[in-house]
């Protein structure tokens, strides 16, 4: 990680807290998942936390983002309360989608998440519409299309790039490129570099998605570009997926080797924080402990919350 200054300590700690919340929630889900207390397909974000944290620190509630199927990281980073998410995973009425959505369909109107979709690619077009709507209504908000590299295979991705550029839509295309489409490596599903071609349509920024400071800086530029120009921009973040596409098992694909130190955005960022004296070891430990308490509370809340009444599903 390169030495950088200019980041305020409270922002640094906020990003750390976001990344640790995403990570520690995942680690909490892993041992519970085989017990079937969460009957919903989860797509964990371990290894990819920096992209959500580094992007969303630049976003406001009025910025609207319809997510894809891998929701936990970006939703928490955007502001979805932990309790609402965990209750939704538990299928309880107190969940963010009132037990109708599950892990792949989260909603938080207050924090600018008007839903998420499990059909890869389509959420990109919806997010372009969100950006256009913000512009037409005179809001300073923007749309954010958050997708993985697999989505760049879809026609709707290219249609959306064209539409956003043609109509000058204030939308940020955020590609969280983990190099895998389920188990397929990128080389087997995409011929070219979509970010390079996107450059024909709009300004393109690139970040190291395992380095939260890199994402923070490039996302800052990209979001500012969208806000100021009221037109589109593209941010490509390379990252690594540590777990299998879905579920709680570690990925063991030979072409997706993981180095738990070098590839870990949290290890890298904590080293930076200590080295630059933005945080002490005690402060870092305290963040982790505080999140553990939040998780205790969120899981207790979910477990104590009622299931929906099956009678509500009238014929």
């Amino acid at each position, binding site marked *: 990680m390169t030495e950088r200054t200019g980041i305020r300590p409270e922002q640094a700690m906020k990003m750390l807290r976001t990344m640790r919340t995403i990570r520690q929630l995942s680690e909490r889900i892993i041992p519970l998942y085989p017990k079937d207390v969460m009957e919903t397909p989860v797509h964990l974000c371990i290894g990819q936390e920096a992209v959500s944290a580094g992007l969303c620190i630049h976003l406001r509630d009025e910025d609207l983002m319809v997510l894809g199927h891998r929701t936990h990281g970006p939703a928490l980073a955007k502001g979805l309360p932990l309790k609402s998410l965990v209750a939704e995973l538990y299928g309880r009425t107190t969940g963010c989608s009132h037990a109708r959505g599950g892990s792949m*369909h989260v909603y938080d109107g207050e924090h600018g998440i008007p839903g998420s979709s499990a059909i890869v690619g389509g959420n990109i077009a919806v997010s372009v519409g969100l950006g*256009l709507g913000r512009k037409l209504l005179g809001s300073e908000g923007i749309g954010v299309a958050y997708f993985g590299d697999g989505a760049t295979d879809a026609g709707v991705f290219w249609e959306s790039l064209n539409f956003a550029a043609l109509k000058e839509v204030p939308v940020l295309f955020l590609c969280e490129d983990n190099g895998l489409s389920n188990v397929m490596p990128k080389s087997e599903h995409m011929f070219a570099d979509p970010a390079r071609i996107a450059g024909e349509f709009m300004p393109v920024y690139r970040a190291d998605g395992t380095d939260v400071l890199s994402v923070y800086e490039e996302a800052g530029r990209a979001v500012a570009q969208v806000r100021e120009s009221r037109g589109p921009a593209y941010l490509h973040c390379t990252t690594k997926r540590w777990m299998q596409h879905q579920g709680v098992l570690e990925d063991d694909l030979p072409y997706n080797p993981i180095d738990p130190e070098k590839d870990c955005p949290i290890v890298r960022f904590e080293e930076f924080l200590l080295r630059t004296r933005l945080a002490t070891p005690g402060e870092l430990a305290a963040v982790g402990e505080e999140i553990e308490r939040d998780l205790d509370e969120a899981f207790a809340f979910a477990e104590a919350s009622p299931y929906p009444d099956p009678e509500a599903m009238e014929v």
Partner: protein
Amino acid sequence: MPWSRFDREWTEPGEGRILEFKDAVREAIDQAMQLDERVFCLGLDADDRYAVYGTMKDLTHPERVMGTPISENACTGVALGLALSGMRPIHIHMRADFLPVAMDQICNYIAKWRDMFDDQCKVPLVIRAVIGRGWGCGAQHSQTLHGLFARLPGLKVVTPATPHDAKGLLLSAIRDDSPVLVLEHRWLFKNEGPVPEEIYFVPLGEGRRMREGRDLTIVANSLAAVHAMKACESEGIDADLIDPRCVKPLDLPLILGSVEKTGRLLVVDYDSPFGGFAAEILAQVAEAGPGILRAPARRLTFPDRSMPASGPLERRFYPDVQRIAEAAHRLCGDPVAAGGVG
């Protein structure tokens, strides 16, 4: 000329100002855009000189009409995003056949969005599509598809038959906070009828009895309703004619009340037969009113295959006034001469 055959095929009787169907549609859009600045139109060729067969002509707010690339799927997603961001979009298609291009957005996104999040958000989105027919339009430019889309939970499907209903239903669709698909048959566009100048709303899910009769109930929507009306008038059929106006939500009580009176049911549905609108009506009548039918219910639909291009084939593909009359007479046990109406 391609469309000359159906120019002013029918004029709805009634008092008041007379408008063509297409002008009634135009007036609904224009008034809605004047009333609410969030109403925004987009679509392929929505803003060109032909103005979607005149339905978008000389609008008061042309700045709120956006022409789009041939990207129906993405543009349907954009329309959903607009609705979720607080606008009230109308996405317009020159042909209903373009809707399946956007099936991912319509089926997986739009129809499900409110239910998937327990109605925490509104989806005030109208999709307008024009049904084509004739002059060799063939398999990919002549589909009706209302039965297909009514299969999707969460989507309302509206099929106006008269200028009055074209305006009133479209205004209701624009006012609705759920997604509504409005399918307008191109062959109705030059029909005339009385249309109030002011804004009015025809409730979605409220059918209309187009004429009173005793011998049988004919249920028909869109162009089929007009043809059924003409069949009754010209062939002396004493039918209770019900135009449900909305495929979904369906006005079952109106249909059932009529069938209880007549004891006979003919559904004329200009769509493919399998699992379609006519099949649904027959199923609902069978479930809701066992024993009320004096004769087996009948359907008159397209054959279960795609639209041919050649004129003679195409004209046989579509049921018409003559065949509706024949079917009605047969159902009532009237003598029907071979090759014609008895």
